[in-house]
């Protein structure tokens, strides 16, 4: 079945497929189409959708709802993400499942409201104080908007953590024909429920990398959430051993599972010396560039990153082995390229890493990438 839809529609459909039943957001170009769809559609499934008085309230409402057991999502753009920052820290430390869509537009500040960008890539990585890991997925097609949104909900549930969908103005607002029969329905994962009976200890885990079981506010067992440094009972503490344990748990719960969090698409060509590493809207130009290059009888490989964070080190390292040149096209000043360079440093022979950076509001053309293949 062919349809003519945009990424916002696919993200909203993915959210419903994943069981989303709460959405709060504040209007901001170019994320508003998601807000409008969720507010219009959630009542059909007994869900709740509300426009907050600002971004801080919107994410706050999501956190409150999520702690009652709701599957919550919000969507914003760079300026709104700035306002989400402190509450994202609360979601990390309080271990609240939440999906946050960042529809990137040109920044800083108000920047270009209707201008495409990929400028939030490192902002997402270090989005709040304290320096803890986050998970961020990045679709480059309408079908991936649908499937990765479901994965985002599953990961948020599994890891009891905020999970980001990093996308952009063009992915959200350009209408595209798409074969929706090929949309992938992902099996739903729900947060692990606390066992019935006995005293519930809200943040208790056997191992540092384990995820604590969840008891909803309003359920059979009393529960607590806190944004303060806490012990396993969710009580404020300055005790060194408890602080150390909580901090290391918040680090380990993501880092120890990073291999399972790698979502990439490798299209390697035997003998190719050049690899293009791309993500999001730019991956579409990269794919075209690879096709043209191959059609011209030259060799070319491609790695598309679908999980920006944690950095998919394994896939990057493996795809770069034996490669002499890596091209990283981005709608920023090389935010992901610096990560690729770091991986390149550990390889022998060490590939050269070159970027194609655009920050003028236009998309990178396949030709701009192709020219770099040609030079190889």
């Amino acid at each position, binding site marked *: 079945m062919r349809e*003519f839809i945009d990424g916002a529609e696919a993200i909203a459909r993915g959210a419903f497929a994943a069981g989303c039943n709460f959405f709060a957001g504040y209007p901001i170009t170019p994320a508003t189409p998601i807000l409008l769809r969720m507010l219009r*559609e959630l009542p059909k499934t007994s869900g*709740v959708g*509300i426009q907050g008085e600002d971004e801080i309230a919107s994410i706050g409402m999501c956190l*409150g709802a999520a702690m009652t057991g709701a599957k919550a999502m919000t969507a914003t753009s760079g300026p709104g993400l700035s306002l989400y920052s402190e509450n994202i820290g609360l979601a990390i430390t309080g271990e609240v499942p939440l999906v946050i869509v960042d529809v990137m537009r040109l920044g800083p500040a108000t920047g270009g409201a209707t201008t495409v960008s990929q400028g939030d890539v490192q902002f997402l990585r270090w989005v709040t104080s304290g320096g803890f890991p986050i998970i961020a997925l990045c679709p480059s097609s309408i079908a991936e908007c649908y499937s990765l949104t479901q994965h985002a909900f599953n990961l948020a549930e599994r890891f009891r953590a905020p999970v980001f969908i990093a996308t952009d103005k063009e992915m959200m607002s350009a209408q595209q024909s798409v074969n929706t029969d090929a949309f992938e329905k992902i099996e739903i994962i729900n947060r692990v429920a606390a066992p019935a009976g006995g005293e519930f200890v809200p943040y208790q885990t056997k191992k540092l990398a384990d995820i604590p079981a969840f008891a909803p506010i*309003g359920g059979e067992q*009393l529960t607590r959430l806190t944004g303060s440094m806490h012990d396993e009972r969710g009580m404020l503490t300055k005790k060194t051993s408890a602080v150390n344990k909580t901090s290391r748990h918040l680090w380990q719960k993501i880092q120890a599972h990073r291999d399972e969090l790698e979502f990439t698409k490798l299209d390697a060509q035997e003998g190719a010396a050049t690899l293009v590493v791309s993500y999001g809207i730019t991956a579409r130009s990269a794919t075209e560039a690879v096709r043209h290059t191959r059609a011209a009888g030259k060799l070319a490989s491609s790695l598309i990153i679908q999980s920006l964070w944690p950095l998919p080190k394994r896939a990057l390292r493996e795809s770069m082995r034996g490669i002499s040149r890596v091209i990283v096209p981005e709608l920023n000043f090389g935010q992901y390229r610096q990560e690729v360079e770091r991986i390149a440093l550990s390889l022998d022979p060490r590939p050269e890493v070159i970027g194609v950076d655009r920050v003028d509001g*236009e998309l990178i053309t396949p030709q701009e990438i192709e020219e770099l293949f040609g030079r190889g």
Partner: protein
Amino acid sequence: MQIAPLEITTYRNLERAKYPFCPGCGHTFVLDHLNAALVKLQLDPQKTVIVTDIGCVGMSDQYFDVNAFHGLHGRAITYATGIKLARPELNVVVLMGDGGLGIGGAHLLSAARRNIGITVLVFNNLNFGMTGGEHSVTTPHGGVTASTRGGNLERPLDVCATVSVNGASFVYRGTAFDKELPDRIAEAITTPGFALLDIWELCTAYYVPNNKFSKNELLQTMQTLGLPSGVLQRMDNPELSRAYREQNVGALGRTPLPPEPIEKKYDSALAATTRIVLAGAAGGKVKSTASALALGAMYSGLWATQRDDYPTTVMSGYSVSEVILSRDEILYMGIAKPDILVIITPEGLTQVPRQLRAMDETQTVYVVPELADQIETRARKIIFNFERAAAGKKSLAVMTTAAIVRHADLYPLAAFREAISAGQRADIAVENLKAVDASERIL
């Protein structure tokens, strides 16, 4: 024989019998009054949640055996709102200080306006107790604090008047010494809508020593400021979480975002991917015409993309739409070098100088006669002739696009007509179909 449920005699966490507050601190009294209110109401602890803000009062939830949510400074009301919206049957009590009141003022206003069914207890000790006695939004004029050494120059916020005028269901002002406080807290919690209690109290660590303050001065200050006390408002407006569900009852059970399949009904002879730019003015149907162009292509078995660009004001200035038609799925959606560029207004012309420069002899610019002289390009230039159009220049975007569908043999015109009928409001579609008829001889 029915066994009566066990009466709950306290909601305090007995492992933490002693509060952490300074001697004489008003928080102690207010929390005891809250406990008394909960005992009076015999609320189910599992259906009750205390949401605390930051500051000394932020520690309070740990001293109760109910659910707890201790979040960020000033944001307690937002979490409480989310909890109540998701689970309207829960009892949601927010404990915040005058500090949280200031930083979270926007949330307070909205909670009152929305009449969300939460109860807010403001532990109002007229300054920031935890960070060292700085002034807050409720510090009286002239009040000496760590941040107003020469006396506060700002006027204090009348929180009760503020939430009252914005629609709160229950509003009360009093002090931590009020005997009726347990009853008033109980009344607030049982109020379906938004309830707030502004409870004045002594900060014995800072405000009391800095201002030679006592219970008498507390009451005196309230009088001097002309702030009334007692129950100040009782209103019976619809509560938000329930009103939301009542409003949406009709939507229940319908499928969210059902698919909207587009069937192939026609055949297109288009061989190569064709990149088309429509450049016109906002309000000139550029975007809707581009949608019809893309939809018609899909009826004809092609793949399509559509990108729209217009100024943020929407209804004035330029409007440019880019449509790509192809036999295969389209990846790169930009158009640096159009195969077809249609310029129908001066506003549109201002937006396409780069494309005009990039185009070559294999590509075509279609332009209205009055702009034809202004166009410099290597591309083939074709000028519309509206003198031959029966309907004049109405629905310019539709008329010119219809002419190009035919002229460039993109796909059958019937598919374009069907796209207009399917995608547009009936009266507008009728007008646009007339423009399609009129397009026949303009090229």
